């Protein structure tokens, strides 16, 4: 800690930071543009100017840029000095020279950092009286709207997009006051993180195109804290609502999880809630019914009344509460997790590895701070996108640590990049085919999953001889294993990343072995496993039988009635099997929010609330339980799945359900049911939590639509809807002061209307949220004396004559069920294909775009060929989950025919 004097008051601040950061952490106001807590300082905008004095007697002082000045003990500065204020106002005036002042029609208006800073500096009247320079805008794809005239050239967009996220197609073009931020030619932005431009850009140059479809002023959005439902990482989000529709997603800062950023699937996938595939009314025997909740539940319960052979199939994309309700209804012995045998096995294996330790499950933040990374089997960009971004930061850590001797402050971003040039820390990547992260890796290994596992085992053995050795490894792989082991061993914080996407137990075990081998001799290592869906980990906690058993049960008549919760079975099992199963079910009851093939012939379909319309709890891949809250009030017939199940249970006279009046009741019941979990943990404040006897508002104080909101019907302000499930109110009324971090429904602070106000919610800039980051980690393995090693080393991959080995490939846009139904995302979903390298294609006598017949076990599909030269010989890639794709149990051998 050092003491600094700001306008003659003394403050204690943390060393090693820059003055701007320190000032903002103290809660003082100092305007800025080019600085960003995650991107560091470059000193371009000159907005953060203050006066620095030599000593107490210095009355003149020097103008300095706070963001470029390290804090020093005893330093004296003034924010308020007239010279500094005047200069800061001039900066705004310059920025306004070419700015169009189109706030009234600008999407950013009301949440605009430029507006905030303009007010903060006190600049009012612009003296510039000449013509403004104008630019042309570009089409940048379905996500981002481009309005270059609003640009103030802070360079943040390219610094995020290019420098931080590794994108290449958004650049700074031209020079002087012609500088232009865009692409060489217009076209779809190629980065999976482009949506962050919306928040990174301090004005309305890059805005959310999906929000633009529902033009609204930002202060008229109601929002609620939520958790992303589009992969297992559980990024924290804010859902914005207008006229009972979800209209946008913003990042919700959580230092341990997603920090300041999120991926495009997470940001734009929400549009599935507005898709025309939504189930909005109960459907009985194919007929849409205008029932209310009670009659829909009654009618459904009739289907179950005389039945004893009822089973329930849960879902990894449904909340803990929904799964738990179903499990309670049908009983543990009739509950199926919704996962195939393989999926169940892999998810539970991961859970047990994490629980057993000693390697800790790493959060996204932990990955960002790691200094050596080894990825086994995961194409992170497409299976767990934010891990891609985290790894891109991690690979800078080792070289940055190394240069501390030449005293370049970590926040001095451009200086560090210039010094390091392309130097990268150790990062190794083993996957079957090319990934977008390849270019950042020190080495990549292209192989079948079993060979990837063997490399992992070999690395573990190189780290600890007592771990099993791999026989018959080629020399070059042995050398690579040794190199990787050496790099991991030398790291202060190595991290292993693997997951379920290769659907290989061997890969998962191999990663565990490496992590365990690293955790010897007081060393520590982190481990991350990715899972397929937002609550896959929750499913692993809850248990349940394999899907295959459900198929058997129906086949052999032990079950005839099936309740399917938020799941499309065709994504988890072979088509012919599912077809047969569904046909054989006497009664099929579906509770879901999107129509799909599974629900097509159901006897009853109940309209469930999607994430934006309900509350619930999820467990992410790290084992962090997190709560998501309802942002909008849908048609009353839509309710959370657990409520439908509860209502049916009540109709069936099941007394348990009567206690589940609100979310808290069932949440508590879930926690109580989980083995080894302290049921007292608080995921979020309970519904009766109040501050000064007030609820916490979802709408900001600036909300204008109270009486005009339904002006087409009535100008009387309607009573806000009740929310029995949370302390959040559907209105602007309520406690306006600091709220618990898990209840942050928007970021706002006096003078800070943009997302930059997040600094006011943090204990210090870029630090934890006040009151602690939300979410509770369920898995904290202790130190284990002697870790057990897995020993089942697979044999090396052996190709088969006339057959191919099919491995799964993933697409950020396309492989995930929900976001595929989002309008903007669906534009980027590729057509299904079969991938082969050129040699393999030639051998088979096929070329690019030829249609071929693929047969894997019983399943068959016809696909066009795509040449993917990074795939090894004899290995073919099948994209997972694309529309029109069937499910295959991969990896597996199969045949390709013309």
């Amino acid at each position, binding site marked *: 800690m050092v003491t600094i004097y700001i306008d003659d008051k003394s403050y204690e601040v943390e060393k090693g930071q820059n003055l701007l950061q320190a000032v903002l952490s103290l809660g003082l106001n100092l305007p800025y543009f080019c600085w960003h807590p995650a991107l560091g300082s470059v000193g371009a905008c000159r907005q953060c100017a203050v006066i620095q004095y030599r000593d107490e007697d210095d009355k003149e002082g020097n103008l300095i840029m706070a963001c470029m000045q390290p804090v020093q003990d005893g330093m004296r500065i003034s924010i308020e000095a007239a010279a500094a204020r005047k200069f800061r106002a001039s900066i705004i005036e310059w920025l306004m020279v070419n700015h169009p002042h189109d706030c009234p029609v600008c999407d950013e208006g009301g949440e605009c950092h430029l507006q905030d800073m303009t007010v903060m500096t006190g600049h009012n009247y612009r003296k510039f009286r000449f013509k403004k320079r104008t630019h042309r805008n570009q089409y940048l794809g379905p996500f981002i709207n481009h309005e270059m005239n609003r640009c103030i050239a802070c360079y943040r967009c390219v610094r995020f997009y*290019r420098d931080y996220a590794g994108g290449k197609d*958004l*650049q700074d*073009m*031209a020079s002087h006051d012609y500088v232009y931020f865009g692409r060489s030619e217009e076209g779809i932005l190629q980065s999976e993180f482009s949506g962050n431009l919306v928040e990174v850009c301090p004005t309305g140059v890059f805005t959310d195109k999906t929000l633009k479809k529902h033009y609204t002023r930002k202060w008229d959005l109601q929002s609620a804290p939520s958790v992303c439902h589009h992969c297992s990482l559980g990024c924290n989000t804010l859902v914005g609502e207008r006229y009972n529709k979800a209209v946008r997603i913003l990042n919700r800062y959580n230092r341990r999880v997603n920090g300041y950023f999120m991926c495009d699937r997470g940001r734009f996938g929400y549009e599935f809630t507005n898709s025309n595939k939504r189930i909005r009314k109960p459907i009985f025997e194919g007929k849409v019914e205008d029932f209310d909740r009670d009659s829909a539940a009654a009618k459904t319960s009739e289907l179950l009344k005389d039945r004893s052979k009822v089973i329930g199939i849960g879902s990894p994309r449904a909340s803990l509460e929904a799964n738990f309700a179903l499990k309670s209804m049908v009983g543990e012995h009739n509950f199926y997790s919704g996962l195939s045998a393989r999926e169940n096995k892999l998810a539970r294996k991961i859970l047990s590895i994490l629980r057993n330790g000693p390697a800790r499950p790493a959060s996204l933040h932990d990955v960002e701070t790691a200094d050596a990374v080894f990825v086994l089997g995961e194409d992170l960009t497409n299976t767990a996108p934010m891990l891609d971004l985290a790894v891109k930061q991690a690979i800078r850590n080792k070289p940055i640590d190394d240069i501390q001797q030449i005293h370049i402050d970590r926040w001095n971003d451009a200086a560090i990049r210039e010094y390091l040039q*392309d130097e990268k820390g150790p990062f190794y990547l083993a996957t079957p085919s090319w990934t977008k992260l390849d270019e950042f890796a020190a080495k990549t290994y292209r192989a079948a999953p079993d060979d990837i596992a063997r490399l992992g085992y070999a690395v573990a053995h190189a780290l600890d001889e007592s771990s099993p050795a791999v026989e018959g490894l080629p020399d070059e792989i042995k050398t690579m294993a040794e190199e990787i082991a050496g790099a991991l061993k030398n790291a202060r914080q190595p991290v292993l990343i693997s997951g379920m996407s290769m659907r290989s137990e061997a890969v998962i075990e191999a990663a565990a072995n490496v992590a365990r081998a690293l955790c010897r001799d007081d060393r520590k290592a982190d481990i991350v496993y990715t899972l397929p869906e937002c609550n896959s980990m929750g499913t692993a906690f809850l248990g349940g039988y394999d899907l295959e058993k459900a198929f058997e049960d129906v086949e052999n008549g032990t079950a005839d009635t099936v309740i399917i919760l938020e799941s499309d079975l065709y994504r988890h099992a072979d088509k012919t099997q599912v077809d047969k199963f569904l046909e054989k079910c006497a009664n099929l009851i579906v509770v879901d929010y999107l129509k799909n093939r599974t629900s097509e012939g159901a006897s009853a379909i109940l309209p469930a609330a999607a994430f934006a319309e309900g509350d619930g709890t999820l467990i992410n891949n790290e084992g962090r339980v997190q709560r998501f809250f309802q942002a909008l009030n849908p048609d009353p017939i839509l309710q959370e799945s657990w409520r439908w199940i509860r209502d049916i249970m009540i109709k069936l006279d099941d007394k348990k359900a009567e206690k589940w009046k609100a979310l808290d009741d069932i949440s508590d019941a879930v926690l109580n049911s989980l083995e080894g979990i302290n049921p007292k943990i608080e995921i979020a404040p309970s519904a009766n939590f109040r501050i000064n006897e007030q609820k916490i508002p979802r709408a900001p104080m600036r909300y204008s639509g109270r009486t005009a909101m339904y002006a087409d019907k009535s100008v009387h302000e309607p009573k806000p809807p009740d929310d029995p499930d949370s302390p959040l109110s559907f209105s602007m009324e309520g406690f306006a002061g600091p709220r618990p971090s898990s209840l942050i429904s928007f970021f706002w602070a006096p003078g800070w209307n943009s997302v930059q106000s997040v600094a006011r919610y943090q204990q210090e800039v870029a630090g934890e949220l006040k009151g602690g980051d939300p979410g509770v980690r369920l898995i904290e393995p202790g130190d284990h004396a002697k870790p057990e090693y897995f020993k089942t080393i697979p044999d090396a991959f052996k190709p088969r004559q006339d057959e191919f080995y099919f491995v799964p490939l993933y697409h950020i846009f396309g492989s995930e069920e929900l976001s595929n139904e989002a309008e903007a995302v669906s534009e980027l979903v590729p057509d299904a294909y079969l991938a082969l390298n050129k040699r393999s294609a030639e051998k088979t006598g096929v070329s690019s775009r030829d249609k071929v017949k693929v047969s894997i076990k019983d399943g068959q599909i016809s696909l066009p060929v795509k040449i993917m030269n990074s795939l090894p010989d004899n290995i073919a890639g099948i994209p997972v989950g694309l529309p029109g794709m069937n499910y295959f149990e991969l990896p597996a051998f199969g045949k390709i025919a013309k």
Partner: protein
Amino acid sequence: MLSEEEKKEIDQELSHSPTRQAVVIEALKIIQRHRRWVSDDSLKDLAEYLEMSLDALDSVATFYSLIFRREVGEHVILICDSVSCWIMGYDTVLDHLKKKLGIDLGETTADGKFTLLTIPCLGVCERAPAMIIDRETYGDLTPERIDEIIDKLK
């Protein structure tokens, strides 16, 4: 497609350059030497050859004033508009050039022969006013001298 000669010249640069990025400006100049200007297509070919993104390349190409991203004529007349030349009669010289060629600044003659542009100080202020055509510098310009120079190039 880049010509063999262009590739050879670029390879020559690559041979002694510590990074690929470092040859970018030289490579753009090589393209320009062979094709007068750097068209969108040339830029794409070059990006492919250097294995870098088109956008990153254009970021550099559009920064430098002597990389022409618009088509220019056979001879590019760059007339110095900086202070010493301006004092010494830049306006007269420019007017004469415009009249003689029948074009304004930034334009190319109909026959594609000449493009007229300005350039900052050429470093021959002792012989102001000055201009540069095809990298040949001409100082002490007068209307007569200009006629002589241009006529020779016609």
